[in-house]
């Protein structure tokens, strides 16, 4: 994988061939929508291509694109659901599966994905960024326009809910 100099067209193709499933999965976990996830990756690729002269020699191309894709996914869900991260009530939404998410869960066909789908949008995004993408709470707060305290609360609630989901999955496996 390319790690120095300005990346070439071939480097981008190689990155797509070897790492795009990771980018897509990360975006899917954030957006919960296959089309939006695909759009986020495409936006990221084009942005990365247009700004490839800014690429740091010490970085890896695939991780650079990954980071851009995550930001693109966040932008897309903000654009599709304006005010998503603003209302306080969202933090305390129940964990009932909403009808508009049902088809997406069916599409994803993964119990883990469904468990993520039972979180509120804020909880899901904060959990994915904090624990799967290893972002710091401060970075998450800046990216989604919340304060750091609310980010930590959202992560805490997400973990709590996901633990319950994991236990029930394990119990089903053991039965």
């Amino acid at each position: 994988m390319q790690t120095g100099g300005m990346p070439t067209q071939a480097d981008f193709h190689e990155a797509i061939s070897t790492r795009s499933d990771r980018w897509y999965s990360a975006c899917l976990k954030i957006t919960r929508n296959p089309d939006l996830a695909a759009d986020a990756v495409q936006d990221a690729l084009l942005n990365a291509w247009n700004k490839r002269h800014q690429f740091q020699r010490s970085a890896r191309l695939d991780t650079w694109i990954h980071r851009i894709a995550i930001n693109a996914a966040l932008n897309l869900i903000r654009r599709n659901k304006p005010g998503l991260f603003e209302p306080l009530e969202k933090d305390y939404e129940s964990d009932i599966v909403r009808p508009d998410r049902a088809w997406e869960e069916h599409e994803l066909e993964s119990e883990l994905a469904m468990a993520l789908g039972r979180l509120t949008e804020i909880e899901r995004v904060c959990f994915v960024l904090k624990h799967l993408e290893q972002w710091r709470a401060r970075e998450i707060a800046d990216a989604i326009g919340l304060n750091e305290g609310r980010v930590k609360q959202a992560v805490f609630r997400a973990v709590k809910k996901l633990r319950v989901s994991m236990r029930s999955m394990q119990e089903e496996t053991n039965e």
Partner: protein
Amino acid sequence: MNDDIRKLVEAHEADVHRPPAHVVEQWHSAIDEAAALERGRRQQPRWHPGSFFWGAAVTGALAIGIGIGFVLSGDNGIPAQEPVIAYVEPGVGATPAAFTRGLAVHLRDSRQQITSLDDSTDATMLLLQIIEQNRRFEMAAKRNDAPKLARVLRAFEPILLQLAANDIAPEDAEALRAQLAFELNVMLTKLASQPSDESHTT
């Protein structure tokens, strides 16, 4: 990180979803098209009528041209919030010849505006309006079950954003303007050479 969270994270990290093959193919194509656009800006561009790239570029330029036309013409009898393409159904066009003529006028106006764009705030505002309109066309394309057109429109947004950016070098801005103007020229040529009833295919 405690054990519970570690297990949770490991489980989620292992939960990788493969993108559909056609989507991966589109990403490869997007990079090829972006590279071709860039080469086109550096060299004297040549038009190969049958190539996928030019098909995509022409379709994008068509929509951008209409968008510019809406922005510049203000009240032209068609609600600005709903792009005309939203009402055009392939094969069921009501007045395709009139549509083509109107489009040609818009494209000529758009070409003129883009080539005379300068670095002023007004130019940035105009480009932002075009981008906004481009997004409406993208959404309209999705609603009309034309995902390819939607993706082509999406691919144009970074170019327009680059042009609207304040930190772009004058020579880069000039090259981007020249490229957009060239694509509008290509579109006008295509419109002039095509039968009018094919002017609104997606």
